[in-house]
């Protein structure tokens, strides 16, 4: 399953709930304001580390990081994708869950 989160972790708890439901082999893609979770000093840093340890893959949409001036602050172990990478992720996973 591909989980997509588009809200800042400071605004909603979407990512927190998402990570609770993410199973090994799932992927989490951070887009729009969701990318702030994947930057240094983010309150989600520890939770993301735990997810990685449980074989959950983490991705962030590069254009959204760049637009917000955050591309140099992205956490290691987060794979950056462009729009075509986004499309690949959607097609590689049988289901997608957009955590609004």
């Amino acid at each position: 399953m591909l989980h997509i989160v588009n809200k800042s972790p400071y605004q909603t708890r979407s990512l927190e709930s998402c990570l609770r439901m993410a199973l090994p082999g799932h992927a989490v893609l951070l887009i729009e304001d969701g990318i702030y979770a994947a930057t240094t000093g983010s309150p989600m840093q520890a939770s993301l580390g735990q997810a990685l340890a449980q074989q959950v893959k983490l991705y962030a949409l590069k254009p959204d990081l760049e637009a917000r001036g955050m591309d140099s602050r992205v956490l290691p172990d987060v794979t950056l994708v462009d729009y075509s990478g986004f499309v690949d992720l959607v097609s590689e996973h049988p289901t997608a869950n957009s955590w609004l």
Partner: protein
Amino acid sequence: MKKFMFVNRKAPYGTIYALESLEVVLITATLDQDVSLVFMDDGVYEIVKGQQTKGIGIKNFSPSYRALDGYDVEKLYVDQASLTERGLSVSDLLVPVEVLETAQMAELMSQQDVILSF
């Protein structure tokens, strides 16, 4: 027949999400699909007993959850952690539900063909 899961995570009247979800659930049910509903985070407030909306001039749509049964929508699941966090228990809810722990909910979610989040 596909397995559709509707994940409800918003409180009922502050935004339109809860009502929109309910409408889509009813449409999906008439298309004869396997429908389940999940209530987690603030979504658990959607099915709290005793909602009285006269004072805010918005239709109280909470009785509709009790009518889902008539559309063969009988799989209603609630996230235990979300209930507990809000000081709620099953007796505070207006419709029969199955309460699931995180691991059970994650497993159920991963078995779906389609997931729609509201």
